[in-house]
């Protein structure tokens, strides 16, 4: 066999073996995949700052260390200021939960009586008795599982910054070393693909982060002005759920509506809640989307629903939140690979 072809094949085998081993390690080590994903997200968000510091004349090491020092100080301040407020709000929410479940069930009962009146013959079952245990079950599971989530989160909280730090410091060198295994005839293609996918995913993550922060901040400020309870918790939930297109903002408003209804609102509070949540979305659409529209992957509503169903079945609530960014990243990568493969070769 020709020496060039043999060398190419050996290189390709080693490259694929290294890739498979890497993917296996990511999948098999507990908490590693989620830490790695969050590590990538953190590194993509800090990368512009690291590059800026490098442009100012700092070495790559210092340009990486400085943002992490800043981040650590920020986290310490947040722990001192925000976490006690957040913990207090979560504890109160836990105490008042049965009241909110009762309100939700009441809503279902009223809806049921109206629906049964219309479709009595079509659906003879009792919706309330079916739905109530589910809602109570989900809510109880969530709060009972909270210590477990927190212990898992501590591991992830330790691993994520560590991985993010090394991705920023050595990520490029690691990719470069990895690319040396690619045979010469695929090298330009692999290098260009890596660059395209990296820049598109980076842009997407940064855009989503800015959007979620803006939405969360608007909800927090609005609810605080309104004097609404759990403003911070609801803002955090609203910000996180904002990563789910179409459905996220709708799901985010539900807890606020339930809390308001349980307080015996006269309707004006509900109107204000609607205004606050709508303002957050309008500001997002007016200020952020036009500037980053090219970086946001547009997904069809049906695709979003299907992806969320798959995500929830695979990883529960966490799956629902992370499935859209992961799917979007996969979509960006697939389009880039397809476009490249069709355009690259003559």
């Amino acid at each position, binding site marked *: 066999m020709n020496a060039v072809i043999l060398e190419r094949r050996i290189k390709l085998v080693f490259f694929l073996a290294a890739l498979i081993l890497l993917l296996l390690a990511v999948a098999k080590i507990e908490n590693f995949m989620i830490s790695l994903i969050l590590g990538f997200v953190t590194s993509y968000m800090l990368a512009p700052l690291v590059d800026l510091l490098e442009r100012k004349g700092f070495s790559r090491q210092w340009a990486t260390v400085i943002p992490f020092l800043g981040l650590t100080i920020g986290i310490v301040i947040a722990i001192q200021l925000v976490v006690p407020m957040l913990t207090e709000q979560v504890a109160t929410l836990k105490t008042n939960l049965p009241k909110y479940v009762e309100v939700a069930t009441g809503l279902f009962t009223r809806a049921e009586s109206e629906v049964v009146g219309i479709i009595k013959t079509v659906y003879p079952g009792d919706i309330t008795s079916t739905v109530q245990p589910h809602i109570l079950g989900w809510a109880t599971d969530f709060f009972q599982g909270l210590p477990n989530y927190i212990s898992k989160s501590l591991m992830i909280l330790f691993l994520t910054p560590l991985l993010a730090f090394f991705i920023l410091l050595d990520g490029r060198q690691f990719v470069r070393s990895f690319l040396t295994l690619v045979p*010469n005839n695929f090298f*330009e293609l692999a*290098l260009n693909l*890596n660059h395209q996918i990296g820049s598109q995913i980076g842009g997407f993550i940064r855009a989503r982060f800015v959007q979620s922060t803006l939405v969360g901040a608007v909800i927090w400020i609005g609810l605080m002005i309104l004097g609404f309870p759990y403003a911070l918790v609801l803002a955090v939930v609203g910000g996180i759920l904002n990563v789910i297109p179409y459905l996220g903002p709708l799901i985010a408003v539900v807890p606020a509506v339930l809390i308001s209804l349980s307080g015996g609102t006269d309707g004006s509070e509900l109107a204000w809640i609607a205004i606050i949540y709508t303002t957050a979305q309008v500001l997002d659409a007016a200020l952020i989307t036009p500037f980053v529209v090219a970086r946001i992957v547009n997904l069809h509503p049906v695709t979003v629903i299907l992806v969320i169903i798959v995500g929830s079945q695979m990883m529960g609530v966490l799956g629902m939140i992370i499935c859209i960014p992961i799917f979007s990243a996969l979509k960006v990568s697939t389009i880039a690979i397809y476009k490249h493969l069709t*355009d690259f070769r003559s």
Partner: protein
Amino acid sequence: MVNFIWENLFEKAEKGQSVRKALKENILFQDLSLRELRVLENIVNVRNFRPGECVFKQGEVGVGMYIINSGSVNVTVEELDSNGKNVKITHVTQLKKNGFFGELALVEDNGRRSATCTAHEESVLIGFFKPDLMELVQRNPTAGVKILLRLGEVLGTRLKETTARITMLKKEVTL
């Protein structure tokens, strides 16, 4: 930090110097300071080619340029003969150590390679591609501007040469 256990440190130092020297001698990078050259050295891609191995083919989308660190490269062009049926391969030139080619791809958007380049003997080529240039511009804009100015100069010179040749050929055809 990556691979530091596995690599022969002395060999790396030698290889690094050789790459840096080759970069410094190239017209595109001759304005860079030592510090900028060190950054660039960690960005470029050193590739080994066997005799007869193709570097890139005519018609492929080009991503960047190559500098010959050792060995030599044949440049050929495939074109249809006067009947428009058979492909005729014309040998254009042979590039030797410190020669460079494919630099137009650094500024072109999805531009296609105008010739095929093949390693004539065991060759070590330094690849500098568009993603590398973008990375350098982001991390060290001063170095990026220096390279782009030189690149403009090289492309301008080639354009002048081509224009002069076309003018000469036109004159010959008219006579």
